[in-house]
C-alpha cells in the first residue's frame, strides 16, 4: 500500500528538516549523499541541516528556504510518498502542486512560535483540497526544554484553527526534527507524552476505502488501430465491464462495450485508475464522460465552485479556460458570491467585482455544456483548473452543480 503524505506549515517551522530526519534515521539515504552534502556545506560555508537532503537547488541552499516541492519515497509499515512543500506565501502554487494528491497532511507547528500566517493558510488549503487526515507535529520541542506546557499551548491554538475547518480529532505529536525526538525514534526526553512517534502515527492510518461509486469513465481520445475504433481513457470511479451499455455525455452517444483492451490483451472489466481502451463504435470524443444509464452523468452549464487564485486577478464577467477531467471549455465568471481570506477562511465581502492573488472565493461559473460532479461525491470530476492566456492560475472544487 502506498500513502501520500504532505508536510505543510509556516516558513522555518521545520518541514524539510523533518523529512531529512525521516530519511536519515530510517537509513534510506545512499552512502555518498551525506559526503556530497558535507562537501557542499564547506564550499558554501553553511552549517549542516537535514533540509539539504531535500533542498537541491543552489538557490535553496544559499537562501536557506525551500522554493519548489519535492517528494521522496519512504518505507514504514507501508510505503509513504512524503511531499515537501515550500512555506513561503509566494510559492503557494508549488505547495498546491505538491499537496493535491495527498491523503494525509502533517501540519508542522513550531513550539516556540505557535500558529503563524502560513500555518493558517496551509490548513485552509489542506481543507479546500479535501484532505481528510491531519496530524499535527509540534516541532522544535528541544528549544522549549521538552516541556509539556509549551506543547499544550500550541495544541490549544492549533485545535482551535483546525476545528474551525472541520477537523475535530487531529492527532498531536511533540517532536524535535533537529534532534530526532518522536520522529522515527521515540524520545527519551518527554516522559509526559505517551502517544506514538510520527512514523507510528502514519502506520496507524487506515486509508479510507472508496465505497462503490457510480461509473465515470473520461474519454481522452479515439484511435483507429487495424481499422478498429478504440476509445481510450481512464476509469475515475466505479467499474466498467465488457457488455455494459454506456451513455457518453455531452455527446449523447449510447453504445455497448464490445471489448476492453489493455495491450496486448483484452480484459473483462476495469476499475478505478485504470487507463484502458474500449471498443464502442463511432461517436464518443475527447472530453466526454461515460456512465451507466442507471446513474447517468448530468450535463450542466453552470455551477458553484470554491476557488483558490494563485496569481493575477479574477473579475466578474471575465472569460477563462476551464479544465475538468479531459474537458477543456470556455467559462464565464458570472458572479463572485464571497471573497474569502485564504489565511483565516473569513468572508471579506459578498457579491464582489474582483479577487486578487492568494485569495479564495465562491464563484458561479457559466460554461459550455460539460459533465461535472460535486467534489464531495466524485472528487475526480469535482475539481478543476482555471487557465488564463494558457497559464494555470487557479484551482477549484465544485460545491453545487446546475445553479
Amino acid at each position: 500500500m502506498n500513502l501520500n503524505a504532505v508536510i505543510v506549515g509556516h516558513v522555518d517551522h521545520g518541514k524539510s528538516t523533518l523529512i531529512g530526519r525521516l530519511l536519515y534515521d530510517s537509513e534510506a539515504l545512499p552512502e555518498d549523499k551525506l559526503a556530497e552534502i558535507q562537501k557542499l556545506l564547506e564550499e558554501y560555508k553553511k552549517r549542516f541541516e537535514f533540509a539539504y537532503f531535500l533542498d537541491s537547488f543552489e538557490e535553496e541552499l544559499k537562501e536557506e528556504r525551500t522554493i519548489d516541492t519535492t517528494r521522496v519515497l519512504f518505507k514504514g509499515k507501508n510505503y509513504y510518498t512524503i511531499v515537501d512543500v515550500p512555506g513561503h506565501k509566494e510559492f503557494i502554487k508549488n505547495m498546491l502542486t505538491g499537496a493535491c494528491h495527498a491523503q494525509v497532511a502533517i501540519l508542522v507547528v513550531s513550539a516556540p512560535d505557535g500558529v503563524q500566517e502560513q500555518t493558517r493558510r496551509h490548513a485552509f488549503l489542506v481543507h479546500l483540497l479535501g484532505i481528510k487526515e491531519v496530524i499535527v507535529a509540534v516541532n522544535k520541542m528541544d528549544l522549549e526544554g521538552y516541556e509539556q506546557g509549551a506543547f499544550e499551548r500550541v495544541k490549544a491554538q492549533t485545535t482551535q484553527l483546525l476545528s474551525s475547518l472541520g477537523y475535530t480529532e487531529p492527532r498531536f505529536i511533540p517532536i524535535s526534527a533537529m534532534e530526532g525526538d518522536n520522529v522515527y525514534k521515540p524520545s527519551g526526553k518527554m516522559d509526559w507524552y505517551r502517544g506514538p512517534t510520527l512514523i507510528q502515527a502514519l502506520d496507524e492510518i487506515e486509508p479510507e476505502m472508496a465505497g462503490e461509486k457510480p461509473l465515470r469513465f473520461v474519454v481522452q481520445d479515439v484511435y483507429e488501430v487495424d481499422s478498429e475504433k478504440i476509445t481510450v481513457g481512464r476509469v475515475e470511479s466505479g467499474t466498467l465491464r465488457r457488455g455494459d451499455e454506456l451513455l457518453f455525455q455531452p455527446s449523447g452517444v449510447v453504445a455497448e462495450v464490445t471489448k476492453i483492451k489493455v495491450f496486448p490483451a483484452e480484459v473483462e472489466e476495469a476499475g478505478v485508475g485504470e487507463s484502458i481502451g474500449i471498443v464502442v463504435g463511432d461517436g464518443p470524443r475527447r472530453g466526454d464522460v461515460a456512465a451507466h444509464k442507471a446513474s447517468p452523468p448530468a450535463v450542466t452549464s453552470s455551477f458553484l465552485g470554491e476557488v483558490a487564485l494563485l496569481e493575477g486577478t479574477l473579475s466578474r464577467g471575465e472569460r477563462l479556460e476551464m479544465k475538468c477531467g479531459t474537458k477543456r471549455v470556455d467559462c464565464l465568471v458570472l458572479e463572485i458570491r464571497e471573497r474569502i481570506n485564504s489565511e483565516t477562511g473569513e468572508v471579506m465581502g459578498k457579491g464582489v467585482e474582483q479577487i486578487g492573488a492568494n485569495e479564495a472565493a465562491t464563484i458561479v461559473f457559466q460554461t459550455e455544456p460539460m459533465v461535472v460532479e460535486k467534489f464531495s461525491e466524485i472528487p475526480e470530476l469535482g475539481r478543476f483548473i482555471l487557465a488564463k492566456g494558457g497559464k494555470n492560475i487557479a484551482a477549484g472544487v465544485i460545491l453545487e452543480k446546475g445553479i
Partner: protein
Amino acid sequence: MLDLKDLENRSIYIVRETYAEFEKPAVLWSTGKDSTTMLWLCRKAFFGRIPFPVIHIDTGYKFKQMYQFRDDLAREWGLDLVIAKNEEAFAQGVGPKEGKFECCTKLKTEALRRCLEEHGFDALILAIRRDEHGIRAKERYFSPRDENFRWDYKDQPLEMWDQFQGLLGAGTHMRVHPILHWRELDVWEYVKQEGIPVNPMYFAQNGKRYRSLGCEPCTSPIESNAASIDEIVEELKTTKIAERAGRAQDKEKTFTMQKLRALGYM
C-alpha cells in the same frame, strides 16, 4: 513494493494526454532501461505502434553495444527513429577532456535543440525519474522550456489533479515526464514483469555491471555480481550506492546537474 499497475496506468494516461494536446510530440530514447521502458509504455498506450518519432541523441561516444541494441530494437518494434547528432561539434573534436559541462551541452543539449528546430517537435517525452537525482526530483510531469531551451525552475507551473500546463508561446516546447514517479527498483520489477528487452551491459560480468548507461568515457561500471534481472532486483533492495554513482557529469562540480538542466539538458 509499489503497485506496478498504478504506476503504469498513470504513465499511460500522461502519454495519451500528450498525444491529444500537442501537435508534434516525440519520445527520447537513450537505449537505457528507463527510456526503453518508456517506449514500451508508449507501445501499450497506442496498442502496439508508437505514432510519433523516437529520437536518439547520438553523441558519438556511446558504447558500441548501445548502438547495436538500438538498431535491433528499432527494427523489431518498427520505430520511426530520428538520430540527433551535432556533427559539427563532434567533427571539431568536442569531447569530455575539455570539460564535461561543455561536452554534454554541445553533444547532447545542442544536438537536441537542432533536432527540434529541424522537425518542429512541440513536446518531448522523457524517461527521467525523481529518485535519480535531487534536481530531477523538483520536476513537473509537464515542464515548459522557453524559446532558448531554458528551464525556469524558479517559476514552475501549477500542476494539479492531472491538469497540466499547456504551451506558452511560439518556439517553446514541453518536456513530458510520464515515469517521474517510478523508482529504479520499480523499473526493474516492471522490466521483469513485462519482459522488456534490456541492454546486456546491465548484467554483471567478471564482478562488474553498468547500473546507468551513458557515454563511454564518462560512465563507469559498479562492483556487482548481479547477472540476471532477479539478482538486480535483489541488489537494489539492499544497496546504499546511488544509481548515478558511475555517471561523471553529475559530479564534476557542485550543482552541475542543475546548470545543465537549466540550459535544456535532459
